């Protein structure tokens, strides 16, 4: 019985010591080495390249993201990021219900295009009910209608050296110290040519609202929401992402988010 008491006392002492070390887990100790472009952070971030390559190995280029039935549409699509662009050029277009809107297809293409919304709507369309996954963690199911990006790229005849598609947008976001920056995004040609990658002009059976990216946004169903640029003005086909923004392939990527957002 005496040993029992000693053990219990020893246990409680030890428990107290262990509990007192818990606040040490507090992690400003690591803050410095995790800042953008710190060497340790860059090593950790290289895991994203591994994720990208492994996910590409695990799925065929045309493997579809899950689609849902009408009954799964239980709410409107939650808007996020920019919901009301204030760019003068955009506001001018918006005031005329985007009648003057032209989608430019430029860069490494044989035949640069300038398409009106009517022309886009007259192209073959695809409608899909899919789950939108935000990087923050939430999901929302909605029905999207648009023209497959592959179709538009075929029309413009992308050149063989093309590797990425860059979406230039009307909206600017003011985050961080460097002032407002134009939203842009980029994906590889595998995702650009994926059957579910559409330039969407319709949401839940209606015209795409401004809050969700009118007149045109892209759906990239095997990646997270921040890849799916809204308020698209121009699509540029390129071989290299370094000339754009701070060279990391997207607005959020320039602020430290992973370029491949399939995870």
């Amino acid at each position, binding site marked *: 019985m005496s*040993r*029992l008491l000693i*053990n*219990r006392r*020893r*246990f409680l002492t*030890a*428990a107290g010591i*262990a509990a007192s070390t818990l606040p040490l*887990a*507090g*992690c*400003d100790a*690591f*803050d410095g080495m*995790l800042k953008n472009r710190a060497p340790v*952070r860059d*090593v*950790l*971030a*290289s*895991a*994203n390249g*591994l*994720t990208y390559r492994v*996910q590409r190995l*695990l*799925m065929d280029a045309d*493997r*579809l*993201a*899950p689609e*849902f039935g009408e009954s*799964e549409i*239980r*709410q*409107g699509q*939650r808007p996020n990021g920019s919901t009301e662009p204030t760019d003068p050029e955009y506001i001018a277009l918006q005031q005329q219900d985007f009648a003057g809107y032209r989608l430019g297809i430029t860069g490494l293409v044989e035949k640069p295009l300038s398409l009106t919304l009517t022309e886009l709507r007259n192209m073959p369309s695809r409608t899909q009910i899919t*789950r939108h*996954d*935000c*990087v*923050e*963690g*939430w*999901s*929302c*199911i909605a029905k999207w209608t648009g023209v497959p990006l592959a179709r538009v790229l075929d029309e413009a005849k992308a050149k063989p050296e093309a590797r990425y598609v860059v979406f230039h947008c009307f909206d600017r976001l003011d985050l961080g110290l460097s002032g407002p920056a134009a939203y842009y995004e980029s994906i590889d040609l595998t995702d650009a040519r994926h059957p579910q990658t559409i330039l969407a002009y319709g949401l839940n059976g209606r015209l795409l609202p401004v809050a969700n990216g009118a007149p045109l946004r892209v759906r990239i*169903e*095997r*990646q*997270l929401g921040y890849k799916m640029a809204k308020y698209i003005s121009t699509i540029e086909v390129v071989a290299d992402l370094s000339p754009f923004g701070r060279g990391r392939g997207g607005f*959020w990527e320039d*602020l*430290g*988010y*992973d370029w491949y*957002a*399939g*995870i």
Partner: protein
Amino acid sequence: MATAINDTPEMDVSRTLTIRRHGLATRLTHWLWALALFFLLLSGLQIFNAHPTLYLGQQSGFAFDNSVLSIGAARTEDGEVRGVTTLLGHRFDTTGTLGVSGPADRRAYRAFPAWLTLPSYLDLATGRVVHFFFAWLFATVFLVWLVASLINGHLRRDILPSGADIRSLPQSFINHLRFRFDHGRSYNGLQKLSYAAVLLIFFPLMILTGLTMSPGMDAAWPWLVDLFAGRQTARTIHFVIMILLVIFFVVHIFMVIAAGPINELRSMITGRYRIGGELPRKEAGQ
């Protein structure tokens, strides 16, 4: 397996024996997991803070309510902002830790407090970078451990509870409550059961629910979403298992300390472990 008789003259030689308890693979994977889980936990709480609500189902209810846990801040009638945690419809005031934390003059409105997240400030991008790096490490170590444990017999011998282990569970439970611990060559029934739960249920579930949150993996392996009845349910399960692993960690550390921290730590570093000595012979393992 090398066994050496401890030759300290004062000790009862017949009952004090130093054995090699943990193989190299077990020790290496143990510490790599410890490292990975430390960073996974703190970066995971950072990621959770970006949207501190958990749901059941395919999607997050904004126009309907399918939430099971929510951590936020709310203003009271007298104008004070309090941390509010809502669990299954029950509201708790968690000011100081969850929802509202930090010093009184510099209150932070965030789900988990700065001392529990990595980095300490709100930074989802960095949380994800850290989380996915260590997720790769964690999953790789799991595969190495599984293969090594199948080959070297660790799984069959030390982890999977035998019929005798199950039958001795009540006695093992009572011994633990009395702080009487086996210092035997092998794990007792309770130890085997908890390690089996952590290694063979919690760890694989953690990896699979993590993968289910990946839109890329949901396309590659559509059965993932079906298995967990929706991405948001998978996110909730991921969180619940995190809690279970934290509870396991606390118990694990306390047991190590209570059962003799020097001996236990040495056995997980060098592999050498002193058995017998303190307990009556019949309980001292095989």
